[in-house]
């Protein structure tokens, strides 16, 4: 061995470096494991909600049962397997299909959540006799699992098999439109003023420190602010996308300002100097040379802030958006709910059938958030210019 290069402690130093490397790798693996565990748990629990069970049972329709629709099914035989929601909706169905009148036919009906859960192999409260019957019907091909159109078309319901996510999706979309319209222009303008126009003095320094601190304020406080200012003082209707959007806009503002400022700061000063040397005004330089360069960074910041706002629940508690909303709201002033609020509501429901809906709701929310982030990355890649 060549002793010329021998350093006595080298082996120990190297071992230390190696140990450190393994510790960091373990940290990585732990977080990946958590993520995978969470995702797979959600998928396992939630995928069932994307299909819904239908049963084919005899339905008797005549003058009397058209009025009292719960009588149209033989209660002892089939009562337990047909959804109450389907029976309630029968009047409407009859209006659309008047030829059903005075028929005694087997028809496909929405199954009760207990049956649905049994078919999906989950916890249910069916009695052994009922289970036998269901099994027999399964053999006869009188039970079907179809794509769960209700989940993507309806709002919340106290009947699990009839509850859907669409009202909250629409609520989120409307709330986000308000948030975006308020927070993005305000945030970008503020950042432009602070970064391009304001002189560096005590006053602007205090403002900047405060903006940075605002980004770290617990979000429920923004909810209180929204309640006190928007609802109590300005009289904006509670639970509406308008008040929710305004509250979330308050919350996203600091994030958008900070990221826009960073984007503006990253534009090389030589570009501004070049503009000034050509006798351009500040506005011309900012509008045509600085903003286009800062755009990808600003877009990314704005999208990430909106994604964060989309997943936010706490401030919306205060403005009454965690509510039971069966209908898709038609305007920015109607009561509505949002996706995370709907998930929260379902997670507290006693019926087991809501568990899979909760998980499915989380999957939809995650999917939307991930695609928003993908859009952010795409936009950044697309508009980043090199020079």
């Amino acid at each position, binding site marked *: 061995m060549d002793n010329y290069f021998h350093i006595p402690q080298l082996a120990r130093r190297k071992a230390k470096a190696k140990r450190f490397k393994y510790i960091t790798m373990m940290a990585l693996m732990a977080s990946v494991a958590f993520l995978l565990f969470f995702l797979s748990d959600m998928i396992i629990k939630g995928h069932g909600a994307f299909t819904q069970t239908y049963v084919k049972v005899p339905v008797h329709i005549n003058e009397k049962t058209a009025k009292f629709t719960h009588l149209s099914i033989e209660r002892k035989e089939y009562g337990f397997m047909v959804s109450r929601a389907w029976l309630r909706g029968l009047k409407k169905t009859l209006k659309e299909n008047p030829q059903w009148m005075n028929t005694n036919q087997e028809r496909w009906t929405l199954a009760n959540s207990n049956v649905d859960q049994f078919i999906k192999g989950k916890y249910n409260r069916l009695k052994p006799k009922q289970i036998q019957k269901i099994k027999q019907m399964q053999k006869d091909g009188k039970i079907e699992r179809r794509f769960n159109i209700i989940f993507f078309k309806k709002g919340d319901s106290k009947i699990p098999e009839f509850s859907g996510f669409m009202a909250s999706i629409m609520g989120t979309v409307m709330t986000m439109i308000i948030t975006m319209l308020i927070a993005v222009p305000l945030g970008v303008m503020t950042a432009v003023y602070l970064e391009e126009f304001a002189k*560096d003095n005590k006053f602007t320094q205090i403002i900047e420190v405060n903006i940075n601190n605002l980004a770290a304020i617990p979000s429920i406080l923004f909810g209180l602010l929204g309640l006190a200012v928007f609802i109590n003082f300005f009289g904006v209707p509670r639970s509406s996308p308008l008040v929710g959007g305004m509250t979330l806009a308050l919350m996203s503002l600091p994030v958008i300002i900070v990221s826009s400022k960073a984007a503006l700061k990253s534009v090389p000063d*030589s570009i501004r100097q*070049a503009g000034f040397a050509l006798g*351009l005004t500040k506005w011309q330089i900012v509008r045509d040379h600085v903003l286009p*360069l800062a755009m990808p960074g600003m877009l990314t910041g704005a999208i990430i802030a909106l994604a964060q706002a989309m997943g936010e629940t706490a401030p919306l508690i205060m403005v009454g958006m965690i509510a039971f909303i069966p209908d898709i709201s038609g305007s920015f002033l109607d009561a509505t709910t949002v996706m995370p609020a709907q998930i929260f509501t379902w997670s507290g429901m006693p019926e087991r059938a809501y568990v899979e809906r909760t998980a499915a709701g989380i999957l939809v929310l995650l999917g939307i958030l991930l695609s928003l982030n993908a859009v952010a990355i795409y936009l950044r890649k697309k508009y980043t210019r*090199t*020079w």
Partner: protein
Amino acid sequence: MNKMTIKVKTDKLKLWYGDKQALNGVSLDIYENKITAFIGPSGCGKSTYLRCLNRMNDLIDNVTIKGKVTLDGHDIYANGVDEVAVRKKVGMVFQQPNPFPKSIYDNIAYAPLMHDMVKKGKECDALVERALRDAGLWEEVKDKLSESGTALSGGQQQRLCIARTIAIEPDVILMDEPTSALDPISTQNIENLMTKLKEKYTIIVVTHNMQQAARIADMTAFFHLGNLIEYNETEKIFVNPKEEKTEQYITGKFG
């Protein structure tokens, strides 16, 4: 060297960055259609002085300027004079080529359009061509005017910046070490261009490179520690300097 008209004149120009004085009363006459070079060691105030001439120092907070700068006899720091209007008459080229990340065409056309000097269309096309021809870049880029200005080589970018400056038809062009980021061949191109441009414009150039000043400048000013030490015709400065400091700097004793 007779019949020289004074283009830019400064009188006891003093400048402070906060409390620190950077120029100690510089009085200097710069002549029309000549190349005037400022030389001196780093931190001597030559760039600061240059940036006073188109009021670029106004952009920095905490700068105090005293004294007088006149262009064709008009005070550029007088009340009511807008610095933007001054910069339209006194263009500037920087050390690092800084084309806008836009097409070559837009790089040149943008400022004239903003100044309402030309209308969009043929008139503007003609101006772009003229500016590029004057900057000696036309032949190289005429087929790729819509490509990004930042895709050009360093020397081409600098000539694009010069073309952009002359497109707004200034009287004076300030150049702050325009070749120090370029290779020798590009440097030579720019120097040739400057000698050609002085027929139309008054050129003031700050340079670290004494040989460059000797090659191209008609007049040379030597700055040291915020003072103008000596100002004379280039030949006299380099062959027969009057001040000891100038001689020491030129012969490489310090700097």
